């Protein structure tokens, strides 16, 4: 563990008068592929939003790439949950990717020719160059997810925070997305993703963060993604978990 890309120091988050995250202390190393794993309502999405400064912290602090999120915003790309997006919005794939440039454009400036070329290049990287003009609602779930990955690439970030990037995605697309993410890690980027499919954690990620309102464990997959710790994460309710952590049994947990 050399450098730290993202670290939480005693982070607590409250909705109304209920704590959804309590005293999270964790550090995610640079150039890693980190999965956040935990049951429904464990606060996985909230943890990502806390890192982005999108929810107020009741206690604690977050350090992003060695600074505050406000000072590092341009180095962070976020792929939100599908539910956050208005799929009926009249917008084409290329325009979605162009949104990745909005953060660095000045307040009244729109994207220009240079941004368009770059956006096409990003679409090409995820294999969707021929779909640039397609309405977002007319793309398949997997294609939509790849468009959002292209938007994240457009941001030119060093830290990628992804909320369920594989939701509603077929196996082929999942492989395609993983190839892009692995290439990003090769360039020194850090990827943190909320992940549901316990069966694939071992193959695809090198770091894991087990969460259930409190931090259960955080560390390399080989030492942290183990039966007993998963039992503690899921409260011992799912029998499949023991298999999922030891072998390639296809166990879907947490829905």
């Amino acid at each position, binding site marked *: 563990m050399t450098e730290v890309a993202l670290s939480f120091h005693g982070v607590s988050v409250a909705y109304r008068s209920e704590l959804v995250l309590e005293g999270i202390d964790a550090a995610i190393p640079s150039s890693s592929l980190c999965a956040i794993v935990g049951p429904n309502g464990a606060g996985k999405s909230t943890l990502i939003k806390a890192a982005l400064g999108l929810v107020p912290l009741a206690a604690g602090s977050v350090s992003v790439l060695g600074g505050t999120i406000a000072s590092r*915003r341009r180095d962070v790309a*976020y*792929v*939100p949950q599908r539910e*956050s997006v208005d799929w009926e919005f*009249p917008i*084409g794939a290329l325009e979605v990717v162009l949104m990745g440039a*909005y953060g660095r454009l000045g307040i009244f400036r729109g994207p220009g020719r240079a941004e368009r070329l770059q956006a096409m290049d990003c679409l090409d990287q995820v294999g969707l160059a021929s779909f640039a003009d397609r309405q977002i*609602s007319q793309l398949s779930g997997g294609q939509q997810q790849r468009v959002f990955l292209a938007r994240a690439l457009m*941001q030119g970030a060093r830290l990628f925070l992804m909320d369920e990037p594989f939701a509603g995605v077929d196996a082929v697309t999942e492989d395609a997305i993983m190839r892009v993410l692995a290439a990003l890690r090769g360039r020194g980027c850090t990827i943190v993703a909320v992940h549901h499919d316990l069966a694939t954690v071992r193959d695809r990620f090198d770091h894991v963060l087990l969460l259930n309102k409190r931090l259960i464990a955080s560390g390399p997959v080989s030492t942290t993604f183990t039966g007993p710790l998963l039992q503690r994460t899921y409260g011992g309710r799912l029998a499949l978990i023991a298999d999922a952590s030891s072998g390639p049994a296809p166990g879907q947990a947490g829905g």
Partner: protein
Amino acid sequence: MIDPPITAMPWFTADDAWMLATAVLASVSCGLVGCWLVLRRLSLLGDAISHAVLPGIAGAFLLTGTRDVLPMLLGATIIGIATAFISSALGRWGRVDRDAAMGVTFTSLFALGVVMMSLAARQVDLDPGCVLHGLLEFVPFDTVALLGVQVPRAAAWLGGALMVDVVLMLAFLKHLRATSFDPAHAASVGLRVSLVHLGLMATVAANTVVAFEAVGSILVVAMLVAPGATARLWTDRLGSMLWLAAGIAAATAIVGTLAAIGFNTSAAGMIATVSMVGYVGSVAAVAAGRTVRRTMPHASTPLTMQQPRSDRP
């Protein structure tokens, strides 16, 4: 009153022309702003705001004792923003669903406005009925000099509002688009999502007030929502939707006003009626077109994906 008649048609006078122009200006400026209400699923909030600005207007009457537009604009914009704020706060704190929270807010504020108007009526001539449906017919009688030409006051204000709307929309297109499509991502790149929302609500409230004297607070809702909702049925592109909405808004205003002159009835009411007919007709036409294309396999639509589209809750 503006004389002489500029046309040979005896039933279409210069006054009628100004009425028509005012209606088109009101309809287009409201229609453009309203596109964003439609896209953000806030049509009913537009309805709520247009009702709720009443106490702001009445308050301005009570304080100044005149019908000056500026104090009204200020009062109504404040109340408009308050409506959006109170509705969402009620949804969060009162655990009432969004529609009910808006219903509580706008009926209460509207009731307050009517009572305040009853008080103000001692000082200025005010008819609460006109507040609801406006009097487009009286617009040409109240003029101001603009560059040496006598122009109806309402038309001047609405022209200004339209210009401000277009400038704002062009300047903040990026913000509006990003925060409407994917607010979580927009916030993550540092766009101020709630500020954009607030700005939009203020613009809606201001437009409502400027248009309100001509078309009234209930009928302005049709001008806000119908052009955007109708245009959205016909196109999947944001740019064409905005252009189409402006065209639909202008056409509705022209048809409505002429029909009202012909039947000697309320122009604002007629414009709202025409808007509704246009919307329902468009739904029927688009649905019928889709059915025809389905039954004729050769003329089928561009490739649609098998993947089920996720619906937002």
